[in-house]
């Protein structure tokens, strides 16, 4: 049996009302396929996948409909078989109320899969594995949706000492990981073993908040079975104290190993990597079953009669899901995620995406509007609860005053926006809003600075070019005059035959040198980078141009509408 794991704890945190019981009474149910699936192409951190289908195409379940674009990006797939009815701009599940390109699929009810084959990652090169995981669309399902293939790399150390599996699930109301662990522990462990092998990781620590005894028990059984099969005890299930945000990746890694991964550093540099339990499950499905990520477990809770967890096809409208649970009459909002960090949805028609661990149904009664904001009295409550050990009131002070440099000095970007500070503030200051504001202002300014840098470089280049042209002209002129003089001199010489003075020699040499310089400069004038292309490159350029035109064409009517 496991020795007692030493725990390290983290600074701060809060204990809000957890409200988890409502949705844990019933097993995970499969949500029915909706009449229309709206699948946003942009469902992960990074580049927006390019559409691979067009209206009228028939697609199969698991067929790639959006191809990863760039180094950080992840593919998206058709959640069921059917017909693409449109590739168009649709409202995104985001507070901003912005639209983005979505593939709209009308399911045909046959639920016909693409051919599925397990992926033999052991005999594949790292690049092949990377591409495979990117193309199966596996991303972090804890909510951050970071492409998993980027994290399944042991980094510069070549191997890790610990793989942390995050089953803490600290946000109130959310129970999707809890239920997944209770019901599918074995599959999670199988996925974990795959990830461990890819990462050459030593031990596996599975952190679960101690308010989930059933999940802990189920995972313990599965872990012991795996340990027994391997003849070691390298997989440990570790109950961690229930305190929000224990499920923050950095907080959990600290609790389990005592290692603090600083902001902006890779955890692999410290021999660690952390994945959500849902991601481990998705990895197993992708590698062992050949199934791309097309569904996820979603908790539907809050202001509903029957809170429950559903296995939901990505692209299912949230309204359909909420309807299954009987929303109460005073329902006035839908939140994606939990009450501490969730995003308010622009309406309830937006689709379930990979980031949607919870569809939280709200009402004015459940989440009453806060009393008016009072001035900060520097009581320090926020600093007491900050899991990043920040001084939130100082950051607030400077963010509010728009002294962003100072806000950064107080480590604004170490803030994980967990909301603990705002939760305890006796002055009811929406502190996190101030930090979001300051961060976005700083980003905007950095972009502006970059643009200014580019403009300055261009300007400097122009000056340089003008100067060069001037020199060239001068050189040409000098050459002409020199030629004229030489002729005259030659004529004179014929008459007088004077001795050539050393000064004249030097002058001639100078002129020759200038001529040579001008010639070389001319030869060096840069050719355009589109000339002298290989046929292959030319074809690529054309393909890209065609794609651009296509996207422009698709986006056109909607852009006009949005005006």
């Amino acid at each position, binding site marked *: 049996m496991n020795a007692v794991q030493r725990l390290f704890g983290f600074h701060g945190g809060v204990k809000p009302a957890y409200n988890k019981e409502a949705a844990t009474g019933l097993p995970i149910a499969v949500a029915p396929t909706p009449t229309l699936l709206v699948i946003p192409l942009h469902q992960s951190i990074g580049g927006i996948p390019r559409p691979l289908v067009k209206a009228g195409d028939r697609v199969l379940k698991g067929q790639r409909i959006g191809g990863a674009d760039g180094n950080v990006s992840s593919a998206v797939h058709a959640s069921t078989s059917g017909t693409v009815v449109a590739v168009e701009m649709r409202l995104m599940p985001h507070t901003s109320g912005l639209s983005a390109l979505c593939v709209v699929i009308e399911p045909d009810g046959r639920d016909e899969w693409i051919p599925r084959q397990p992926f033999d990652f052991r005999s594949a090169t790292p690049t092949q594995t990377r591409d495979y995981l990117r193309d199966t669309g596996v991303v972090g399902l804890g909510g951050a949706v970071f492409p998993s293939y980027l994290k399944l790399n042991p980094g510069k150390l070549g191997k890790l000492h610990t793989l942390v599996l995050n089953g803490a699930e600290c946000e109130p109301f959310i129970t999707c990981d809890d239920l997944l662990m209770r019901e599918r522990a074995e599959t999670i462990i199988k996925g974990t073993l795959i990830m461990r092998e890819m990462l050459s990781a030593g031990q596996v620590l599975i952190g679960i908040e101690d308010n989930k005894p059933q999940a802990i028990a189920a995972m313990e059984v599965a872990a012991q079975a795996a340990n027994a099969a391997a003849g070691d005890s390298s997989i440990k299930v570790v109950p961690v104290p229930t305190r929000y945000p224990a499920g923050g990746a950095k907080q959990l890694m600290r609790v389990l190993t005592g290692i603090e991964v600083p902001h902006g550093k890779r955890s692999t540099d410290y021999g660690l990597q952390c994945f959500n339990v849902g991601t481990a499950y998705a990895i197993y499905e992708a590698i062992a079953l050949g199934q791309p990520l097309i569904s996820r477990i979603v908790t539907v809770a809050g202001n509903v009669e029957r809170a429950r967890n559903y296995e939901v096809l990505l692209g299912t409208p949230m309204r359909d899901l909420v309807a299954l649970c009987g929303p109460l009459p005073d329902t006035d909002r839908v939140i994606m995620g939990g009450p501490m960090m969730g995003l308010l949805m622009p309406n309830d028609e937006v689709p379930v995406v990979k980031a949607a661990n919870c569809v939280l149904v709200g009402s004015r009664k459940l989440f009453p509007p806060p009393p008016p904001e009072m001035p900060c009295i520097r009581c320090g409550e926020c600093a007491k609860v900050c899991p990043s050990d920040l001084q939130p009131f100082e950051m607030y002070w400077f963010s509010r005053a728009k002294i962003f440099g100072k806000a950064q000095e107080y480590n604004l970007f170490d803030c994980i926006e967990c909301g603990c500070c705002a939760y305890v503030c*006796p002055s009811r200051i929406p502190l996190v809003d101030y930090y979001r504001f300051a961060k976005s202002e700083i980003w905007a300014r950095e972009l502006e600075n970059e643009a200014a840098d580019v403009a300055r470089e261009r300007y400097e280049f122009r000056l340089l070019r003008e100067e060069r042209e001037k020199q060239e002209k001068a050189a040409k002129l000098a050459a002409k005059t020199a030629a004229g003089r030489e002729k005259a001199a030659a004529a004179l010489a014929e008459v007088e035959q004077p001795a050539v003075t050393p000064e004249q020699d030097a002058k001639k040499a100078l002129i020759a040198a200038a001529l040579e310089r001008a010639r070389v400069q001319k030869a060096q004038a840069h050719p355009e980078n589109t000339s002298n292309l290989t046929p292959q490159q030319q074809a690529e350029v054309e393909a890209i141009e065609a794609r651009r035109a296509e996207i422009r064409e698709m986006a056109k009517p909607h852009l006009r509408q949005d005006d």
Partner: protein
Amino acid sequence: MTRQDRDLLVNNSPYFLQPASVQSVMLRVLVALLPGIAAYVWFFGAAILVQILLASVTALAAEAVMLKLRGKPLMMFLGDGSALVTAWLIALTFPSIAPWWLTVFGTLLAIVVAKHLYGGLGQNPFNPAMVAFALMIVAYPLLMSQWPGVDATDFAGQWEAIFGSRQLDAMTMATPLDALRTVLRDPEQRAVIAGLLGKHATFGNVGGRGWEWIAAGYALGGLYLLQQRIITWHMPVAFLATLFAVSGAFALYEPDRFAGPGFQLFTGGAMLAAFFIVTDPVSGATTPRGKLIFAGAAAVLTWIIRTFGAYPDGIAFAVLLMNIAAPLIDMYTQPPVFGHKDKRGDSP
């Protein structure tokens, strides 16, 4: 749900908040002052209640006028209780038989000048109650040092002192700290301080007679604030421990010149300062190490002022001096953030 409805909601997480408010913080501070006030009434009569009432009414009126002038929502701020805390602290630090206008004037200075002219709640660099005390003791040193004698609890006489036109010298006496100074400066009376305790109208068993019980009341209230997590241990512990250490060291060195730690802690406003005054978050340091430095330095200054200064009851000056230093202390005592606590964090 319509778009308009949505805009009326909270737009960003977190969507629910812990039930906490400035008002509840301030009210609990007032509650914490009650044991000390009870002891005050027991030993020195009900005059203190009159002063508390005077200061409270003045503070609320001044707060209302200033909020109106500044165009701030009246009820929201008037109900926050911060003006009441200032008022009570003024009443408790001024002599309880001071003429009414002294308290009113002091309170006006605190609320109008020290608080609102600096930007109101949360913006004042100096502790308003201490500003009032410091200004009034400089302006009216005589009135500010006429304290009621122990057991002179005749309310009619006290009423006359507060609202009457003449001074009632018969019932006033110096504070224990003032008395001690006089005793120590008189070569003929020089004696070991321990010998004074219990044998003098002004001195009690540990500190000032009566005052030691009030101090105990404040300490009790302070423990309540600690239990309620309104204050952290840093300030009271640093203040009291430093005062104990410094006065203890000097008393050991020359017991007939320096009062011992027990006396220092249980006379004057030491307990009040430790739990209620240096702990004012607005004007004090806020980082854990900063709090220790702030309160420790305030204690050293308090001891120096008490021992060598012109105003033996001069904690206010110590606090105000430290208020000036608070931003600097905070700047240099920022705790390391997550992941930057050791070298391993900086360079993997």
